[in-house]
């Protein structure tokens, strides 16, 4: 080799190595979460507000954030007025509320802008009534506060002697809405001036009533405002009091959100091809030309955004987490999660970022019943009160934060009750902290709406099993079968206060895989079918043959269920009901070539493939009530979430309390009902602290929680269920504001009707469930063994092959043979 060639070749090889090692750097388009900087964590602190006291039972939410703090409206009681006459002929006094504008400074001082009061706009009509409301607030160029107020008014041209709200009155009905800009002095709160906003220059949406609706307003800092209406973005010159530039968006071009940064940069999240299913973009807006300038790579919608500080162009909220969008890399970084800072996400208002990297916000939190944990929580309960505080979130060195053991709870979206449970647990334990990892934050238009679920499953697959796993939408049985989930039955048996016998055995059995009770749901609901007792008999559970016999006895043209019940729904339920019969997982045998499965195919064939909801118009004749009463429909689908749900079927099937039977879907065994479960959480076999994880989860099973009335569906606790059943047989009464029962003319308590039925002559009211109704529901609840999570893979195989039968291309036997072959492969793969 010549003298220079060898070093040159070596240099090239080294450059190639360096380029390869840099390949992992991501492009600007991805949204990534980055762990907090090593050694820095965020902490939250709350302080009481100062200054003026808020009106009684009112909260301040700090809806609008400006550089000098938070602004929000509060409806304040200003007096009383007669609202009508009660049954005793006495006037009913009602509170009169007026909207007030309040301000909280960054140090937490509250005050009311007293100049805001008593504004009703110009007189649109002498008889006009209506409503005035504050839409938004922004800052003027000289430090004033500018409020956008909407005034809605309505009247009738029908004439003075027409009775208000009669048909004739409505024939002459007119309405309009106007917008006013009101300018206040920041220091004194006095109004300086106001004028009506002329929206004639704004384009009108084809879906509106001929007037533009102005949603939002932002100060550009130079004497102009940027306004967002339902069909445009427009620049408004405050001095000239007119719109200068308009960007018409129309109805296919959607604006998701607008954010104006402290340096005047305008960011707009929009979807330019919404009607064609296009995806959203984020761009800067040139307010002088009203065109989009620079598109920024961004996968979100810019919800709850705040002006950026330091390295970040802007901040925004996604789910319960706050992200910062970096100026340099054009990537998003997750900064913190509210739950993990022991804050109720619903209680945090819009953030006011500070230059030192901290954030201020208004915080309100409800104290919610019931008490949830057995640990050191002080047990105080309050009936739904809130308190407004100033929240400060700041970055601190990790060494300043107390060391706690962190358990991860992975979820794809926590319900509110569980969020509250996490908060209570974390606040009550000094040694352990549950960190919520919400994988729904990975879902967006670009990566897809199941990206989070896929990521979670992949992490489990690669060995990163979270300590506690929300089993909603997860292959719980497979995880249990792989030995990844702890047997909570053993934990329950070892619990000194709770015992297995307290809970419904059929629910526990449904949550057992092999010998492993992989989760204990807090509550459950049941889906079944309901029919008239004289048609279907009085015992739940029947076969396909019995159903067809009953159908043949109905009038010609009678269908099994409502016209909107589609095949997929029925097939899924019926497969789920008889899955144990068609699939023997332990032996690896399938029986889809059995006569019972052929019956399923025959039964589901008569249902429509899908219902044309797009062209559906409800008429009385299309409803279940009409169709059942006229013999056009034999059964109704029934979703049981409470005992009172059955009262609807009393109404539907003719009025008598025993007029119907919860007959169920046709199946070979059982009562034909399927259950859905709620709040199911698994504990990892490698959980770092099983005691703490169980301490958290057992809170959903305590008497307080089970009897709280806040559950979705029925409690799994026997005692709570029986109590709920008892309560369902007791009538409810009307009460006054102090909780005292109202009395009728005879001095009897006034009962509250919870349902009604037509007895052929008039409507009869129902005040409570009967004993027999409650017993029939309890019978179904306690004997339902099938869970509504029929194996997706088997379901997919069946539906795919069954199409040929439904289309008449193949016989049921041919299709059953194919399903048998494919399902056999699937089942044996799992062994």
């Amino acid at each position: 080799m010549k003298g220079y060639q060898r070093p040159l070749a070596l240099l090239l090889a080294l450059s190639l190595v360096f380029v390869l090692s840099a390949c992992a750097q991501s492009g600007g388009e991805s949204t990534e979460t980055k762990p907090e900087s090593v050694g820095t964590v965020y902490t939250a602190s709350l302080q009481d507000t100062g200054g003026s006291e808020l009106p009684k039972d009112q909260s301040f939410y700090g809806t609008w954030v400006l550089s000098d703090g938070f602004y929000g409206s509060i409806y304040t009681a200003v007096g009383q007025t007669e609202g009508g006459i009660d049954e005793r002929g006495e006037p009913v006094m009602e509170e009169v509320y007026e909207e007030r504008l309040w301000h909280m400074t960054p140090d937490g001082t509250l005050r009311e802008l007293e100049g805001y009061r008593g504004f009703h706009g110009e007189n649109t009509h002498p008889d006009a009534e209506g409503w005035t409301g504050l839409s938004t607030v922004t800052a003027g160029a000289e430090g004033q506060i500018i409020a956008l107020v909407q005034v809605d008014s309505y009247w009738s041209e029908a004439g003075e002697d027409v009775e208000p709200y009669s048909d004739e009155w409505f024939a002459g009905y007119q309405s309009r809405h106007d917008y006013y800009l009101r300018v206040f002095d920041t220091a004194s709160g006095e109004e300086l001036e106001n004028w009506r906003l002329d929206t004639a220059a704004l384009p009108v949406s084809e879906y509106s009533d001929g007037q533009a609706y102005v949603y939002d307003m932002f100060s550009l800092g130079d004497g102009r405002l940027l306004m967002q209406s339902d069909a445009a973005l427009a620049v408004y010159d405050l001095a000239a009091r007119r719109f200068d530039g308009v960007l018409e968006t129309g109805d296919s071009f959607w604006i998701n959100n607008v954010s104006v940064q402290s340096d005047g940069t305008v960011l707009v999240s929009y979807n330019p091809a919404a009607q064609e299913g296009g995806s959203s973009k984020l761009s800067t807006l040139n307010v002088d030309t009203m065109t989009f300038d620079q598109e920024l790579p961004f996968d979100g919608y810019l919800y709850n955004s705040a002006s950026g500080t330091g390295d970040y162009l802007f901040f925004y909220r996604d789910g319960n987490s706050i992200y910062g969008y970096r100026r340099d890399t054009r990537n998003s970084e997750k900064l913190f999660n509210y739950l993990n800072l022991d804050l109720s996400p619903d209680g945090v208002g819009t953030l006011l970022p500070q230059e030192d990297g901290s954030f201020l916000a208004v915080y309100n939190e409800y104290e919610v019943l019931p008490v949830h944990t057995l640990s050191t929580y002080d047990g105080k309960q309050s009936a739904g009160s809130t308190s407004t505080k100033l929240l400060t979130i700041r970055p601190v060195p990790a060494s300043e934060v107390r060391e706690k053991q962190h358990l991860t709870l992975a979820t794809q979206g926590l319900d509110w009750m569980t969020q509250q449970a996490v908060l209570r647990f974390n606040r009550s334990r000094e040694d352990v902290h549950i960190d919520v990892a919400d994988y729904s934050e990975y879902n967006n238009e670009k990566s897809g709406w199941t990206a989070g679920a896929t990521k979670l499953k992949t992490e489990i697959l690669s060995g990163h099993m979270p300590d506690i796993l929300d089993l909603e939408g997860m292959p719980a049985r497979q995880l249990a079968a792989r030995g990844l989930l702890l047997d909570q039955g053993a934990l329950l048996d070892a619990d000194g206060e709770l015992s297995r016998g307290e809970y419904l055995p059929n629910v526990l059995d449904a949550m057992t895989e092999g010998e492993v009770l992989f989760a204990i749901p807090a509550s459950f609901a049941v889906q079944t079918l309901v029919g008239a007792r004289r048609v279907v008999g009085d015992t739940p559970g029947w076969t396909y043959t019995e159903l067809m016999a009953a159908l043949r006895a109905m009038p010609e043209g009678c269908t099994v269920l409502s016209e909107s019940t589609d095949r997929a729904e029925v097939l899924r339920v019926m497969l789920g009901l008889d899955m144990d019969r068609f699939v023997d997982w332990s032996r690896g045998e399938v029986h889809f070539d059995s006569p019972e499965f052929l019956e399923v195919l025959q039964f589901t064939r008569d249902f429509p493939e899908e219902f044309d909801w797009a062209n559906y118009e409800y008429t009385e004749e299309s409803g279940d009530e009409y169709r059942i009463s006229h013999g056009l429909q034999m059964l109704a689908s029934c979703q049981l979430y409470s005992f009172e749900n059955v009262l609807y079927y009393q109404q539907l099937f003719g009025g008598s309390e025993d007029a119907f039977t919860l007959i169920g879907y046709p199946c070979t065994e059982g009562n034909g009902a399927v259950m859905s479960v709620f709040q199911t959480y698994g504990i990892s076999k490698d959980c770092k602290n099983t005691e703490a994880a169980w301490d958290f989860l057992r809170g959903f099973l305590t008497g307080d929680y089970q009897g709280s009335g806040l559950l979705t569906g029925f409690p799994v606790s026997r005692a709570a269920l029986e109590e709920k059943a008892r309560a369902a047989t007791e009538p409810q009464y009307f009460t006054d504001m102090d909780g005292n029962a109202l009395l009728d003319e005879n001095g009897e308590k006034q009962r509250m009707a919870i349902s009604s039925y037509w007895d052929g002559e008039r409507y009869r009211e129902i005040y409570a469930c009967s004993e027999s109704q409650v017993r029939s529901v309890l019978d179904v609840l306690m004997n339902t063994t099938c869970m509504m999570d029929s194996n997706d893979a088997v379901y997919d195989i069946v539906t795919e092959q069954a199409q040929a039968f439904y289309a008449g291309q193949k016989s049921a036997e041919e299709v059953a043979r194919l399903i048998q072959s494919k399902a056999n492969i699937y089942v044996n793969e799992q062994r």
Partner: protein
Amino acid sequence: MKKKRHPIKHRLKDFGLSLCFLSPSLLGVGVFFIVPFAVVVYYSLIDGVASRHFVLLDNFKRLFANSAFRLAARNTLHFSLLAVPLAMALALLLALLLEARIPLKSQFRTFFLSPMMVPVASVVLIWQVLFNANGTVNELLAVFGVRAVDWLQSDYSQIVVLLLFLWKNLGYNMILFMSGLANIPRELLEVADVEGASEWYKFFAIKLRYLSPTVLFVTILSLINSFKIFREVYLLSGAYPYETLYTLQHFMNNTFESLDYQKLSAAAVVMAAVMVVLIALLFKAEDWFGKDVEG
């Protein structure tokens, strides 16, 4: 005086320099092939991602006891035994034909090569239109009074996939054989002609021997491509095709979906081992068969 070069030092220096040049490729192969395969082997020897206890061959025992795996292995072997020899024989035949003086040789060559350029999804679409229960082929058969066949959901499905495989791969194999044929020394064939050798003798004694490296290469390539037929079958029939189309790749794909990583890894290791043995045998066969013609 000329400086004496130390041979070992020189060799080490050369080796080090070679490593530098090879390092980018080694790094890539290591990161994307060797390390992942090592992880797969590791996973095949443990009982689960949670506990990670070594269970040695338990996963393999479970695998061989699994009827779905046995079915997949049987189908894969069956298809490869059919497809690979057919692909080789037909490609060689076409290469020999195109070697002869026939009209439109260039157009025929383009015709056979063009399937390589068609995207898989388009190919699958065409095959679906042709072989659907209500497809073109059945319509043609109906003209002749033949009853319709559910090509993709019956025992004929392997024939359909075999046709697809041959249609897609013949062109490339043919080109390789044509290139191999072009490298056979003309003098030997002329001498054979002079000596009065028959065409059969020339083919088996001369051409085939000189083609043995090409035959080896085409065999290995066809074997690999016969495994890749999973792609087309998956697009045609989904994750659970008709019994005879269910191959090892289906098994592995499905076990991945159901998080059974141990079974998947064990199957991958078994398949890799079988491939290594097969290819080693093929190399040995080529060594023996082509020994006379290699320098």
